């Protein structure tokens, strides 16, 4: 089809997308896998990885015995009910403008959606908006700050959901001075402690972790040393096809050699100690505290909470006592949703009984189907649950 191109952007031989390089790496993966001589399971812990793997159908380039699973890499999916319920309640409070990222608005919490007949359907921020809540989708925390400045007579709440990369932006904003009427719901997650929980689970058989390229540019790789110490291979992973494949090669080589280290094939962006300035700013504004990972567990030191000096910007504190505490709790996932197991890599999305039936991207039942970072969403979108697509041309 090359003759159909001639257009700009018709494939440019960008090094990190280069098909030849990807083919070479795929060959290398097959060789090392053969040397290992037994099936190997690897895991990535980043929603963007799952998305890119799906978009380029990279699993089709791996040999039979090499499996790459998706782990807890979607901030929207692990965001605890309590925060979603809090956001919903606040959005329905007169005088409050609730801002969050687009993906977060459609995630159901645990407040039942009245009048719903599809089953155990829970309320999301979009449902709150339909009931009169002032809910706005923003692209960044800085946009939220502008909204707060433009509405001095309102309380503006930023529902801050995310991993390190999001938290860094919130820290930067608060440090430079935020208006009084701006508060933050602290649903910010720190991944390394969650990865130390995984090996404790029954039947854990992951031999290597592909580390999330975006997050480790900030935290650095050192924070994953606990995995290597347990004999689990680690390698940083970027998001282009070449990056993903190179990370797999590195993990397999470590496994073949029986030497778990922390390799850095994504070294064009990642430094072993991360970004000192960003880490320092983060540390000034936030401290690590226990936080609940939805449906999984409360994990010590895996959440970012505002330090005392910034506590006036904590929504939980400012609105404490004004909310219905009972409604803040509630069952974790809707009945039959197996997001927790999907998130831990224990089952594939299509092993959930409602996948593709009751639960689809246009009518999501569980959180993993809502977010673009969610594993169920990626699988459904790119057809990863289907047999390898075979084409019969004319």
């Amino acid at each position: 089809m090359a003759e159909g191109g001639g257009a700009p952007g018709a494939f440019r031989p960008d090094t990190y997308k280069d098909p030849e390089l990807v083919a070479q790496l795929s060959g290398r993966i097959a060789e090392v896998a053969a040397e290992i001589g037994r099936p190997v399971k690897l895991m990535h812990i980043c929603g963007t990885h799952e998305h890119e793997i799906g978009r380029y159908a990279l699993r089709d380039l791996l040999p039979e015995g090499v499996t790459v699973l998706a782990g807890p890499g979607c901030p929207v999916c692990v965001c605890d009910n309590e925060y979603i319920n809090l956001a919903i309640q606040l959005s329905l409070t007169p005088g409050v403008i609730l801002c969050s990222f687009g993906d977060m608005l459609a995630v159901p919490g645990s407040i039942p959606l009245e009048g719903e007949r599809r089953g155990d359907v829970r309320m999301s921020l979009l449902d709150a908006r339909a009931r009169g809540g002032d809910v706005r989708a923003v692209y960044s925390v800085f946009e939220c700050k502008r909204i707060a400045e433009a509405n001095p007579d309102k309380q503006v709440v930023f529902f801050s959901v995310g991993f390190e990369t999001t938290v860094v932006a919130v820290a930067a904003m608060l440090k430079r001075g935020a208006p009084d009427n701006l508060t933050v719901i602290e649903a910010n997650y720190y991944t390394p402690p969650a990865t130390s929980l995984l090996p404790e689970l029954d039947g854990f058989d992951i031999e290597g972790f592909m580390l999330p390229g975006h997050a480790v540019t900030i935290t650095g790789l050192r924070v994953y040393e606990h995995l290597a110490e347990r004999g689990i291979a680690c390698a940083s992973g970027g998001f282009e096809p070449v990056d993903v494949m190179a990370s797999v090669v590195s993990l397999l080589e470590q496994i073949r050699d029986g030497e778990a280290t922390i390799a850095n094939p994504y070294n064009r962006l990642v430094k072993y100690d991360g970004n000192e300035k960003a880490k320092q700013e983060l540390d000034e504004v936030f401290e690590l505290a226990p936080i609940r990972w939805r449906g999984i567990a409360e994990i010590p030191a895996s959440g970012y909470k505002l330090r005392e000096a910034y506590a006036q910007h904590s929504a939980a504190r400012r609105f404490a006592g004004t909310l219905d505490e009972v409604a803040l709790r509630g069952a974790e996932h809707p009945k039959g949703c197996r997001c927790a197991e999907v998130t831990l890599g224990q089952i594939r999305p299509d092993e959930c009984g409602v996948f593709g039936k009751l639960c689809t991207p246009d009518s999501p039942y569980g959180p993993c189907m809502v977010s673009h970072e969610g594993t169920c969403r990626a699988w459904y979108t790119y057809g990863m649950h289907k047999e390898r697509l075979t084409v019969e041309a004319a």
Partner: protein
Amino acid sequence: MTSENASDVQNAERSAGAEARAASAERTRLVTRYDSVRLSHGSGGKLTLELIEELFVSVFANEPLRELTDAAIVANLGGRIAFATDSHTVKPAFFPGGDIGRLAVAGTINDLAVMGAKPAYMTAAFLLEEGYDMAELERVVRSMKATADEAGVAIVAGDTKVLERGHGDGVFINTTGIGFLPDDVRLGVGYVRPGDKVLVNGTLGDHGIAVMSRREGLDLAVELESDVAPLNGLIEQVMQVAPNVRFMRDVTRGGLAAVANEVVLRQAFGLRVFDVAVPIHDVVEQYSEMLGIDPLLAANEGKVMMIVPPDEAEAALGAMKAHPFGREAAIIGDIVRKPEGVALVETAYGTRRVLEMPIEEQLPRIC
């Protein structure tokens, strides 16, 4: 000519067109008594008449409209008539490469043109918010006129309503158009056969990314213009050399993914897109990657997807490329026997993924 040159030329032509449109907008500032829209402009009384005469009639300038009758009387088009309507709202109303006026006219023209019809007449209904800037309204109206002229279409009737402040979003425009549909035009999904080729007339996703870049909260300094354009001229040229075109559809919201899925829905064939053949502007590629948006799902306003029998594909491609709105046209895929009812993408790596029907507006991704 290298591909980059082709892109430069098209951009140059596009911005030349944009300049010409802007110039015609500047030429005569009309003197309306008010600098913003009042409720009475929609009351049907004196101010309404003033607005119609001073703005709409004077800019749209054609006989049926000048009569100011309750309905426009137009000449018999003689034969089958295609008839389409579309309502338009866009934020921001002015964006790089276009505005809501051009969008509203081109949108309805394209709906008619992809049916194989020759658009002839159009109506325009405005829903204005009280307080809307009169000079801005004039720019919108002039842009509509310029676009209609470009497409050879007359705007012969209209309506104006004014919504109380806070109950509208500046300006909404509905346009309805009719066009003559020649007897020998046979287009539809039912004519599509395995082996047919899939073409588009240029880079995908330009409009979506250009508009998104100007949304509040992003404000990216993107060097990119929307592709908004009336396509009836281009389509006519293609149909002259490829009379057996099977199917056409304008690629708008939901991008190529939406159109491809509409084609294969419940059909005994599939549609395959070759990732490497799809023309994507460098800037679109860069920003869509940054924002986590798939250009195949991003909006367009001047693109058509055509399905053409294999022996007419090259001729159709040549005709597209010969038109200013088709310089970067490409054959991007084909119709396959299997899998049935599926639109799929073949990647640069020889792997395949489903091209899923988009379900929502594309939003930048969180990380």
